[in-house]
C-alpha cells in the first residue's frame, strides 16, 4: 500500500516537474524588452517641491482621465493567447470526455438490460463513475475560459455577445439540466426501474449534445461567419449558428468525442488491470479495456470521413482558408497528424493481435498478422511522406528541387487518400479476424458468405487503388471528386461485411473461450499509449481549426490587433499541446484515483491504535457515560 502510494506520488511529482520544465523552457524564449535606465536629469527644483508638483500632476491627470474601452489585456508571463489556449484545451478535453462517456455507457447499459447480463450493467456503472468529478472539472475550466476571454479579449467578446446573446440562456438552462440528469443517472444507479434509469441516461445524452451544438456555433462562426452584414452587424442569429462549418464540426466532434472517451475509459481499465490483485479483477478490467478500445476504434474508423466533410465545407466557404490549411502555413501540421494517426492505427491493430492470444482457436488467423502489419506500415509510411523535403542546398541540387524525384509522388493527396483508405480497410480486417477467433460458422451458406466478404474487400481495395493511380493523370477538379467514391466504397465494405458477418456467425459453434485477463501486460500500456495519442491529436487538430483564422478573431470581420496577431511556429504549438496533454493526464489520474476509492472499505484505525484507544486512560470523553 505504502509502495503504491509512494509510486503514485512520484508519478505525480514527475508529471508536475515535466510541466514546470516545459513551461520554463517556453518562458525562457519569451521576448523581454531591454531595460534602459532613464537619462539623467538635472535637478532644477528642490526635491520636496518636485515631489509635490508630481503628485499634483498625477491627481490632475487622474481627474481628467477619460473612459476608454480596453481592446486587450495581457496575461502575465505566458501571454493572453497561451493562457486562453490552455484553459480552452483543458475545458474541451474534459467536456469531450463528459459528453462521450454517457453515450456509450447508455448503450452498454441498454445491452445489459436487453440481454439481462449483469456484467454490462456493472461495466456501464464503472464508466459512469468517472463522470461526476470530470463534470466539475469541465465546469471549472469552462469558467476559467469564459473569464479569461472577458478579461483578456473584452472587445472581441463584446462582439460575440452581440451576435450570440440569444443562445446564452438556453445554454445555461441546458447546463442546469445536464447537472440534473448526470447526478440523477449516477446516484440513481440501481435505485430506479431500468427503464426510468435508461430514460435518465437518454436525457443526459440529449442535453449534453444540445450544449455541444450551441458551443460549436460560437466557435465555428469565428472561422466561417454568416448571418451578418458586410460591416459585421447581426442580421440573423440562426444563420450565424448554422454557418458553413457548424454541422461538419458537430458531426466530427460527436464521433471524435466517442473515440476519445472510449480511449480514456480504456486507459482507466488498463490502469486498474495493471494494479489488479486477483484474476477476477484482471478479467473484469481486461474486458473493460477491450470494450473501451472497441468503442474508440469503432468511432475512429469513420473519423477521417468526417474530416473530409469538414475540410470540404471549409473549402466551400473560402478556398483561401482551405488552401491555407492544406497547402499553406499549416500544411506541415498534417504530416505530424499522419504520424499520430499512423501510430494510432498501428497501436490499435497491435492490441487486437495481442488480444487474439487470449482466445483459443485464434491460431489459424495469426499467420495473417505479418501481412497486415506490412500493409499498415506501408500505408503509414505513404501517409507521412511530405511533398517537399527539408534539405540542404547541396541536397536540393542533387535532387533537382525541394521534392524528392521518386518520393514526391507519394506526398500528394492521391497517394495519401489511397493510403488512409487502405489503412482503414486493414484495421477493419484485423477486427474481423479478432471477432471470428474461436468461432466456427454453422450456417449452410458459410462458404458463400466468406467468398462474398472477400469479394467486397477486393472490389473496394481495387476501387481505392485504381482511383488513387488515376488521380495522377486527371485535372485537379476531377481528382478532388475521386475521394468520394473512395470513401463510399470503404464505408460500404465496413457496413456490408459487418452485416454478413453478424448473420454468418449467428449460432456459431465456439471452438475456444475468451480467457479474459490472460493477455500480455504490454497490451495495457498500448491502451494508455492510444489514449495519450488521441488526446494529443485532439490538441493538435483543435489548434489547426482555431489557428486557421490566422490574424482574425472572426475571419474577415474582427481583426486581431493584439501582440499575438501572428501564427506561431508549429514547434511552439506542439509544445503548448504537450503541456495541455500532460496537465490533462495529471488531472484525469486524479479522477481515476477518486473513482477507485468508491467500493473501498471505510477507514478503520489500525489494530494497535484501536487497542490504544481502548486503554482506560485514553477513553474519549463521553465514552463512560
Amino acid at each position, binding site marked *: 500500500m505504502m*509502495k*503504491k502510494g*509512494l*509510486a503514485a506520488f*512520484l508519478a505525480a511529482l*514527475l*508529471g508536475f516537474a*515535466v510541466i514546470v520544465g516545459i513551461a520554463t523552457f517556453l518562458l525562457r524564449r519569451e521576448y523581454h524588452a531591454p531595460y534602459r535606465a532613464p537619462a539623467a536629469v538635472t535637478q532644477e527644483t528642490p526635491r520636496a517641491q518636485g515631489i509635490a508638483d508630481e503628485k499634483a500632476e498625477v491627481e490632475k491627470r487622474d481627474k481628467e482621465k477619460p473612459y476608454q474601452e480596453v481592446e486587450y489585456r495581457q496575461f502575465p508571463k505566458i501571454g493572453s493567447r497561451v493562457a486562453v489556449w490552455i484553459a480552452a484545451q483543458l475545458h474541451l478535453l474534459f467536456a469531450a470526455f463528459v459528453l462521450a462517456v454517457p453515450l456509450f455507457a447508455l448503450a452498454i447499459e441498454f445491452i445489459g438490460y436487453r440481454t439481462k447480463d449483469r456484467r454490462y450493467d456493472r461495466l456501464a456503472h464503472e464508466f459512469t463513475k468517472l463522470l461526476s468529478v470530470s463534470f466539475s472539472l469541465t465546469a471549472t475550466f469552462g469558467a476559467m475560459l469564459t473569464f479569461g476571454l472577458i478579461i483578456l479579449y473584452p472587445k472581441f467578446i463584446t462582439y460575440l455577445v452581440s451576435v450570440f446573446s440569444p443562445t446564452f440562456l438556453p445554454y445555461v438552462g441546458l447546463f442546469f439540466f445536464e447537472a440534473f440528469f448526470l447526478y440523477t443517472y449516477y446516484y440513481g444507479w440501481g435505485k430506479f426501474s431500468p427503464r426510468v434509469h435508461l430514460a435518465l441516461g437518454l436525457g443526459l445524452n440529449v442535453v449534453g449534445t444540445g450544449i455541444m451544438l450551441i458551443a460549436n456555433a460560437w466557435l465555428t462562426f469565428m472561422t466561417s461567419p*454568416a448571418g*451578418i*452584414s*458586410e460591416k459585421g452587424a447581426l*442580421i440573423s442569429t440562426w*444563420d450565424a449558428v448554422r*454557418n*458553413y462549418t457548424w454541422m461538419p464540426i458537430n458531426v466530427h466532434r460527436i464521433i471524435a468525442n466517442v473515440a476519445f472517451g472510449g480511449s480514456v475509459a480504456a486507459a482507466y481499465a488498463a*490502469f486498474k488491470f*495493471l*494494479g489488479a490483485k486477483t484474476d477476477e479483477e484482471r478479467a473484469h478490467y481486461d474486458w473493460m479495456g477491450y470494450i473501451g478500445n472497441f468503442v474508440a476504434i469503432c468511432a475512429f474508423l469513420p473519423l477521417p470521413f468526417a474530416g473530409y466533410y469538414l475540410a470540404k465545407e471549409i*473549402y*466551400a*466557404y*473560402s*478556398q*483561401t482558408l482551405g*488552401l491555407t490549411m492544406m497547402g*499553406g502555413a499549416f500544411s506541415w501540421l498534417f*504530416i*505530424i497528424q499522419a504520424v*499520430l494517426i499512423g501510430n494510432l492505427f498501428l497501436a490499435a491493430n497491435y492490441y487486437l493481435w495481442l488480444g487474439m492470444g487470449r482466445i483459443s482457436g485464434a491460431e489459424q488467423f495469426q499467420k495473417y498478422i505479418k501481412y497486415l502489419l506490412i500493409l499498415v506500415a506501408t500505408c503509414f509510411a505513404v501517409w507521412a511522406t511530405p511533398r517537399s523535403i527539408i534539405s540542404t542546398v547541396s541536397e536540393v541540387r542533387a535532387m533537382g528541387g525541394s521534392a524528392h524525384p521518386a518520393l514526391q509522388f507519394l506526398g500528394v493527396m492521391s497517394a495519401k487518400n489511397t493510403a488512409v483508405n487502405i489503412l482503414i480497410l486493414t484495421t477493419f480486417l484485423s477486427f474481423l479476424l479478432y471477432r471470428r477467433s474461436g468461432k466456427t460458422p454453422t450456417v449452410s451458406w458459410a462458404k458463400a458468405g466468406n467468398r462474398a466478404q472477400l469479394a467486397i474487400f477486393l472490389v473496394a481495395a481495387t476501387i481505392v487503388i485504381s482511383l488513387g493511380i488515376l488521380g495522377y493523370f*486527371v*485535372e*485537379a*477538379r476531377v*481528382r*478532388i471528386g475521386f475521394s468520394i467514391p473512395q470513401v463510399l466504397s470503404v464505408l460500404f465494405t465496413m457496413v456490408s461485411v459487418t452485416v454478413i458477418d453478424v448473420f454468418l456467425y449467428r449460432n456459431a459453434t465456439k471452438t475456444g473461450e475468451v480467457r479474459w485477463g490472460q493477455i500480455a501486460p504490454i497490451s495495457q*500500456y498500448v491502451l*494508455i*499509449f492510444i489514449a*495519450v*495519442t488521441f488526446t*494529443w491529436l485532439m490538441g493538435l487538430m483543435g489548434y489547426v481549426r482555431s489557428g486557421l483564422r*490566422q*490574424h482574425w478573431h472572426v*475571419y*474577415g*470581420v474582427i481583426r486581431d490587433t493584439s501582440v499575438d496577431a*501572428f*501564427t*506561431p*511556429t*508549429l*514547434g511552439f*504549438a*506542439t509544445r503548448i*499541446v*504537450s503541456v495541455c*496533454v*500532460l496537465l490533462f*493526464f495529471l488531472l484525469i489520474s486524479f479522477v481515476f484515483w477518486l473513482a477507485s476509492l468508491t467500493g473501498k472499505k471505510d477507514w478503520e484505525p489500525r489494530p494497535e491504535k484501536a487497542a490504544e484507544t481502548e486503554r482506560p486512560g485514553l477513553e474519549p470523553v463521553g465514552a463512560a457515560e
Partner: protein
Amino acid sequence: MKVPVSLRIAALAVATTGFYTYVGQLVPQKEVHPPAEVAISKDMKPDEMAKVGREIMEGKGLCFTCHTIGKKGPLRFPDLEGVDIRAKSRVPGFSDVDYFAQSIYQPSAFIVPGFNPGMPVINKPPIGLTDDEILAVIAYLQTLGGKTTVTMQTKLPYQAGGNGQAAAGTVAPPPAGPTGGPAATTAAAPAPQNAGKKPETPQNPNPSPPQ
C-alpha cells in the same frame, strides 16, 4: 528493482508526448505574420506599379496561395504565366484591363474552363485590397505576357464612385457575361460576399480566378 506501475504509466505518458513534441520540432518552423502594407503613391510610374503589384500579390493579396507562375500539370487554379496574352482575347469585347478588373472585383462573372469557382472578392475582407492596390496588381499581371498600360489614374467601373462611363483613361464598362455567369455590370458594388447569410443549399460562394 521493480518499477511501480504508476511510475511506468507516467513515464509512458511523458515519453509519448515528448516524442510528438520532438516530431513537431522536426518540421519547418515559420511564424506567419499579417501581411505588411505596401506604400502606394498616385504618381507611380507603370514599372513601379508592376513592382508594387508583385509585392501585393505575394503578401496582402494572398494570390500565390492558389496561383502559380510557370507551373505545368494538373493544377487546381490557373497558372498565371502569359496571362496577359489570354486576357486580351478571353472575353469578346474586353481589353486585358477589363478582364483583370472583372476577375478581381467580380470573380464569379467568368470561370476559366476546366477550373472550379474558388476566387474570393479581392476588395472585401479578409483580403480587402484597395482600388489603388488593385491597379498595381493589374499592372503586374499585364507584365506577364504583355506591357503595362494601366496607370494610377485609370478609372475602373467597379471602383468606389466609378460610374461605368468609358472616357479617356477609363476602362469601358464590360459587356454581358460570356459564360453563363451574370452580366458584368457597370455598377460600382462588387459581388456579395459569403460573409452574409448562408444559402439554403450550400453553394460555393467563392468563385474562380482569372487565367
